[in-house]
C-alpha cells in the first residue's frame, strides 16, 4: 500500500463519480453512423462451400438447431405460463401449497444437450473434420481460429444459460441462434478449406 492510498486527496479523487450520463441520446447518432459501416472483417476471402458436403452437413445441423430451438422456446414459455396459472389458482383457492408444473423437467439451458442425437452426431462430424484440417494450418492461423471458436462457444454457453432464465427474451433468442450459426459456419469453412486456401477467421 502506498502513502497515497491513505491520503485524503487520493481517496477523494478515487471516490468521485465515474459515470456521467450524456444529456442527449448519443445512441441515435452512433446507430446512424455504424449502420452505414459494415463490420470490418479480415481480408481473407470466404471459402465458398455452398455446394459441398460440409455445407450440407452444416445446413442440416442448422435446421435441427432452429427446429429444436423453436420447440424449446415455445415449450418453455408454455410450461412457465402453466406454472404461473397453477400458482395463481393455488393461491386463490387453498392455503396448502400444490405441486406446479415441473419447470426443472425442461433443460436448464438451451445447450447441446437440448438438441438431440441428430444434431450431436452431425456436429461431431464437423468437429472432427475441423480438428483434422486445423492440424495442417500454420500456427498463427490456427491460434486465431481456435480463439474465435472459443469466443463463440463461450458466448453460446453464456447466452444459453441466460436464456434459460429469460426464455421469452427475443434478443437472447436471436443472439443464441446467430452464435450457433456462426460457430457452424466457422467449422464448415475450415473443414472445406483447400490446403493452400486462406480462410476467414473473423466469423
Amino acid at each position: 500500500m502506498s502513502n497515497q492510498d491513505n491520503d485524503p486527496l487520493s481517496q477523494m479523487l478515487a471516490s468521485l463519480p465515474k459515470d456521467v450520463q450524456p444529456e442527449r441520446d448519443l445512441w441515435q447518432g452512433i446507430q446512424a453512423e455504424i449502420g452505414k459501416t459494415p463490420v470490418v472483417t479480415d481480408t481473407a476471402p470466404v471459402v465458398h462451400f455452398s455446394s459441398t458436403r460440409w455445407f450440407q452437413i452444416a445446413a442440416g445441423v442448422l435446421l435441427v438447431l432452429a427446429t429444436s430451438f423453436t420447440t424449446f422456446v415455445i415449450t418453455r414459455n408454455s410450461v412457465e405460463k402453466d406454472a404461473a396459472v397453477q400458482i395463481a389458482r393455488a393461491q386463490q383457492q387453498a392455503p396448502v401449497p400444490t405441486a406446479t408444473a415441473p419447470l426443472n423437467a425442461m433443460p436448464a439451458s438451451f445447450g447441446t444437450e437440448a438438441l438431440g442425437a441428430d444434431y450431436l452426431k452431425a456436429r461431431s462430424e464437423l468437429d472432427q473434420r475441423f480438428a483434422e484440417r486445423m492440424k495442417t494450418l500454420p500456427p498463427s492461423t490456427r491460434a486465431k481460429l481456435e480463439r474465435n471458436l472459443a469466443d463463440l462457444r463461450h458466448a453460446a454457453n453464456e447466452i444459453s444459460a441466460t436464456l434459460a432464465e429469460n426464455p421469452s427474451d427475443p434478443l437472447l433468442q436471436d443472439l443464441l441462434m446467430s452464435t450457433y450459426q456462426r460457430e457452424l459456419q466457422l467449422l464448415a469453412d475450415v473443414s472445406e478449406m483447400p490446403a493452400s486456401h486462406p480462410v476467414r477467421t473473423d466469423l
Partner: protein
Amino acid sequence: MQYGAGANDSVPVADPLLSDVSLVTAARGGDMRAFERLYRTHSGKVMGLCLRMTRRRDVAEDCVQQTFIRAWRSLQAFEGRSAFGTWLHRIAVNEVLSHGRNHGTRSESNEDAIEDAIASPGDSDKEHDAGEVMDLERALRTLPEGARHVVVLQAVYGYSHEECADMLGIAVGTCKAQLHRGRKLLRERMGLAAEADDE
C-alpha cells in the same frame, strides 16, 4: 455485470445479464443490438472520462459518440487482452487528444457541466459530502491540461503510470511528474496540507 443501467435507456432496466465478452462476440458478428447493450453499459464512464478531460459537455459528447463509432469499426481488432471498458477508454482518450489537436485545447470550460453531472446520484463515496466533491471537481478543472489528464486517468479512473503514459503517448516519467504537479496544485487550491509525496 448488469447492463441497461445507463442514461437514455430505451433498453429495459431489468435486462438479463450477459458479460461484455459475449456481447462483443455477438457485436463482432454484426449484431447492433448487442453493441447497443455495450453502449448502455459503458457510455456513462466514457462520458465521465471525456468530460473531465475536455471540460466541455458538447465536446465530451462528440468524443463519446466518436469513441463508439470507432470501436464498432475496430471490433475485430479487440483481442480481449484488456477489459472491453479499458479498450474503450483508450479510444476515448485518443478522441479527446485528437479533438484537442484539431480544434485547439484552449476552449472555455463548460462550468456547469461537471457540477450538474455530479449533482445527480452517482457512485461517489458517501464519506465525502457534495460540497467537497464539488470543490474538488472545480479544482480539477483549473489544472493545466497535461496534469489534469494524468490526474483524471490515474487518480480518478485508477489507471497505472504505464497505462496512463501509453494512453496519452507520453513517457512514464512525464506521467509521474504531471501527477505530482497536479496533486500539488490540487492541494494548494483546496487548502489541504501538503503530503510528504508532494514535497
